[in-house]
């Protein structure tokens, strides 16, 4: 009897502990979600504020007590932003530089990665180590001389200067080489035996297999062009050549007028939109590329 009671007590105890644990679990779960929601809210807030502000009239924006959502939606801000910042021109310039440099960069990267992954030549390892070593040096160190060099070439204020200096990315070569190395060597040797030329093999076999990496590189490179600011600002700051970020920053600080914040926010929204679209559709590639690179753009 006593023994029996004991077991019952024990069972009860276990039960109460487990309900306690359940409570605690739920409590923690709620806490976790609350924390995540709060952080998500903070992360999203600037985007919300950008859109909300971009739709307000200037007088509504300047209200002492701000409205959370515009009372009257002013879409005209977007049209005005487009003309004030001359966004059409900036889009075209950026797209041109982005596309040309991405294409050239892909060709160079693929060829180099192929050479490092599949071909044997003297000094291959030393050369590869040398390339990796350059990755440790901050890009700002190159800027000074590159500034002088492109000046010497007479490239100041041309599109060339926005395309050529940064075509080769050691990191992308490294990334793609790793990817190529995973493709079994037998495929290559078999192709050799069949008398298939290198380039054809590269095109038919390796590129399709490494496609995800190539897409990642393409997106990151395009995003790089879209976000580049410092170098263009130094070497190609003429209106006809301006890239989107430079134009955006300058057209709202150079202006003689006081800042029209809603229009400015509209311009920011327009500039941010393509990045979001790319992100929505190609999230997987961006995330996988990014997690390996640790660099922005």
């Amino acid at each position, binding site marked *: 009897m006593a023994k029996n009671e004991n077991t019952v007590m024990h069972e009860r105890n276990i039960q109460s502990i487990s309900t306690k644990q359940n409570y605690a679990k739920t409590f923690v779960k709620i806490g976790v979600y609350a924390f995540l929601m709060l*952080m*998500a809210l903070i992360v999203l807030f600037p985007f919300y504020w950008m859109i909300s502000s971009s739709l307000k009239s200037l007088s509504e924006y300047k209200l002492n007590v701000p409205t959370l959502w515009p009372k009257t939606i002013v879409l005209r801000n977007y049209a005005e932003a487009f003309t004030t910042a001359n966004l059409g021109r900036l889009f075209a310039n950026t797209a041109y530089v982005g596309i040309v440099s991405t294409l050239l960069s892909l060709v160079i990267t693929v060829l180099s990665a192929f050479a490092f992954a599949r071909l044997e030549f003297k000094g291959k390892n030393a050369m590869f180590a040398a390339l990796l070593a350059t990755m440790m040096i901050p890009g700002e160190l190159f800027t000074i001389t590159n500034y002088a060099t492109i000046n010497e070439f007479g490239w100041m204020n041309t599109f060339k200067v926005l395309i050529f200096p940064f075509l080769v990315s050691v990191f992308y070569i490294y990334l793609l080489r790793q990817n190529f190395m995973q493709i079994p060597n037998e495929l290559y040797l078999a192709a050799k035996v069949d008398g298939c030329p290198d380039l054809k093999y590269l095109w038919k076999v390796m590129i399709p297999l490494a496609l995800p990496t190539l897409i990642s590189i393409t997106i990151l490179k395009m995003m790089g062009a879209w976000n580049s600011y410092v170098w263009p600002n130094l070497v190609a700051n003429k209106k006809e050549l301006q890239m989107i970020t430079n134009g955006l920053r300058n057209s709202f600080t150079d202006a003689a007028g006081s800042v029209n914040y809603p229009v400015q926010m509209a311009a920011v929204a327009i500039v941010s939109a393509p990045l979001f679209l790319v992100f929505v559709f190609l999230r997987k590639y961006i995330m996988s590329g990014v997690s390996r690179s640790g660099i922005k753009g």
Partner: protein
Amino acid sequence: MVDSKHQWKAWLYLSPAIVLLLVFTVWPIINTVRMAFMDGYNGLAIIGGAEFEFGIANFQRVLGLSSFKNSLYNTMLLCVLTVPISTLLALLIAVALNSIKWLQKGLQTIFFLPYVTNSIAIGMVFAAMFNIVGNMGTDGNDIIITAGIINNILGVFGIEPINWINAGSAYWANITVMVVYIVWNALPFKILVLLGGLQSINKQYYEAAKVDSTPRWRVFTRITVPLLSPMIAYVVITGFIGGFKEYSSIVGIFGEDMGPAGAPGRLNTIVGYIYDALPKMNYGVASAAALILFGIIFVVTMINMQVSKKRVHY
């Protein structure tokens, strides 16, 4: 496999990369070192026939300049503040994300959003959020037309409007805004990497902990953090490297003046300092500053690697 045809071909494939690297990477390295050791090297003076003495005068000058010291201080301060804060926050978010199922994908996407933005453009949004429209910096004669959404939100908690970035704003206020923005910007990458790391941790460790009914906190400090340490080391190192090159986030918020009205240059960084010297053709000083930056990054990376060698649990 090594035949002469391949040798030739390999170099052919590599040639575009090699040519570009020689011109835009290798030569700059050599030239930067050369210019850094030529006293007062200036692009204009060299046309005028000036000769420069060889020595370390540029380094001495740069290190003695108050403007450079100021830049160095700002850079270090931002690094020291933002890297730990963003890493810790990212770690908490990643662990939280990893512990839930419902909404995980959606939240993960939201947390990644800041990554796909333009740091100048969104900097302008942050500036607008902190900006007071009006006339600031007077003695009780300030005119506030609208205090900015951040001040409005703080106002709900009874906090008087703070002059964050306008004329007369305090240094700590400027730095606070920069820290908020830089952390916001740095979170996505760190969350992505840490979450990736968490998801690859073997579930058995946690099962074992469950059996022993180890408290959550101990699980976190004794299992999660050690197992995640390579990833943490990685985000810390990249965080420091990025932090020492901080520039465009400040341009985003304060514009190229690198400071609030009345104090331009107050928030300048090492990279900003280098860029300022370029249009004046002061290549010698700029090169010295760039080498110092490289030195700092190199040392910090090495220290980090040493520390992680001892601490990181592979």
